């Protein structure tokens, strides 16, 4: 019964003298290996050379600030709901008078934590966020850790630093590459 067209008939015939000599086969094999000897090497010398990363690569998270340096996150919890790995947890707080330069909305995240051991870097938090507050940076990888206490990233390590706001001339240049990619997709109408 023929089950597949790729089936090969097995032959148990005696080896011919040429095959039993081994030498022709060995010379053929040597030819193959010497061809590889002169072939271009595939190795990338990592710290010196780096593979170009995709502009949509999902790396380390960042909690964005707006153009005036206020935190965009309003602690709605949609990212935590969207997260399939349940890596995100937050505690919301109400903005006090006089804190308008710190937080964009009346409600903000007093605590915002991502467990990097649970996170699967799927980017669903980024998609769920209605305030464009959380992004997975395409140019920064989540660093390795050697201690379990380093694993949970709080606001101290997640919120975008003020320097990047100050050096950014416009909102656009303050954005990460993934922001720019989203902008481009919207502009091109290819979504």
């Amino acid at each position, binding site marked *: 019964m023929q089950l597949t067209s790729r089936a090969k008939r097995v032959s148990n015939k005696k080896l011919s003298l040429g095959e039993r000599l081994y030498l022709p086969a*060995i010379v053929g094999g*040597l030819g193959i*290996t*010497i061809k590889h*000897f002169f*072939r271009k090497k595939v*190795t990338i010398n990592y710290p010196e050379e780096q593979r170009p990363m995709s502009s949509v690569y999902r790396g380390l998270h960042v909690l964005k600030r707006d153009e005036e340096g206020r935190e965009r996150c309003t602690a709605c919890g949609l990212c935590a709901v969207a997260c399939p790995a349940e890596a995100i947890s937050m505690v919301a707080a109400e903005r006090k008078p006089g804190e308008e330069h710190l937080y964009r909305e009346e409600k903000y995240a007093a605590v915002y934590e991502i467990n990097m051991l649970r996170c699967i870097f799927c980017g669903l938090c980024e998609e769920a966020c209605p305030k464009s507050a959380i992004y997975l940076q395409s140019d920064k990888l989540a660093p390795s850790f050697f201690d379990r206490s380093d694993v949970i990233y709080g606001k101290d390590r997640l919120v975008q630093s003020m320097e990047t706001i100050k050096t950014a001339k416009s909102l656009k240049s303050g954005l990460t590459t993934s922001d720019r990619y989203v902008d481009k997709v919207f502009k091109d109408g290819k979504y």
Partner: protein
Amino acid sequence: MDVYFFLAKAVIILLIFGITLLIATYSTYAERKVAAFIQDRLGPNRAGPWGLLQPIADAGKMFFKEDFIPANASKWLFIAGPSLAMLTACLTSCVIPFGGTLDLSFLGISELVPVQGIDVNIGILYVFGLVSLGVYGVMIGGWASNNKFSLLGAIRAASQNISYELAMSLSIIAIIMMTGSLSISQIVADQDSFYKWNVWRQPVGFIIFLVCAFAECNRTPFDLPECETELIGGYHTEYSSMKLGFYLFAEYINMFVSSAVISALYFGGYHFPGESLVAGLMPAGALGHNLLTLMGILVFFGKILFFIFFFMWVRWTIARFRYDQLMNLGWKSLIPLSIANILVTGVIILFLNS
């Protein structure tokens, strides 16, 4: 025979010894580089430029490892094993002629000094004697470890070496019959022009010798004594630190020596094509003679390096033989073939002489 002659000899012997060790050291580096290149990788390139300091780093690592002797091992033999392997490996290169003769008349030495440790008239027997002693290092080490894997490796090494030594010696006999001498320098001197190289005159003998050299060096495809997948390292399973280093290093020295022997016996040693033409262009007197000898030495080392590369090239091409295949190849193919080779050679010699 004056003092200066002995001094010149001593310098040559020391140089040969040093170069042997140096080439063996850098063979480890070359092995890794060749392996990497054949597998489309780059190989060691972090220690020094192009990773050239890698052998030194490896040796340093070896020295600083714990030198462990198992509790139930036979302690004295456990130490004797690697020492013997290293000793026999280092002794072999002294009878190999690395070049022609040097004219050192400006130092007051009237005789021509051959670039060779000792020119014994039984050079080839000496090499075979030491190569067969080399297996004792492996056997003693494997037995003294008191470990089943090591013992299996040692048994395999012993049986493999004994089987292949037969075919190896028989393949050499044809050359000895042709040259009429056991001295390696005589055999090399006999191949003074390109068409007289023994590889053309003894192609079957050369292939037999090459295969047996692989087996004697315990190199792939005949690395059964130390196959990692079956015997977790074979005879050197229990060894660590510089004792292990000695075993591995002895293997590379053996590889160098067998490459030298192959080049000397079959590829004309320090002779090269167009030698007489070059000799005519050289200035007369001692300078020209020495320059020609120097060129011969370089050519010889070129041949040796090619064969070392060939050893590595084969290693990263062919899979390991099964034990029964190894024995079949040795006893049922190579030995009858080499005996037939001797007969055919004898008939031809008789025919040509009559």
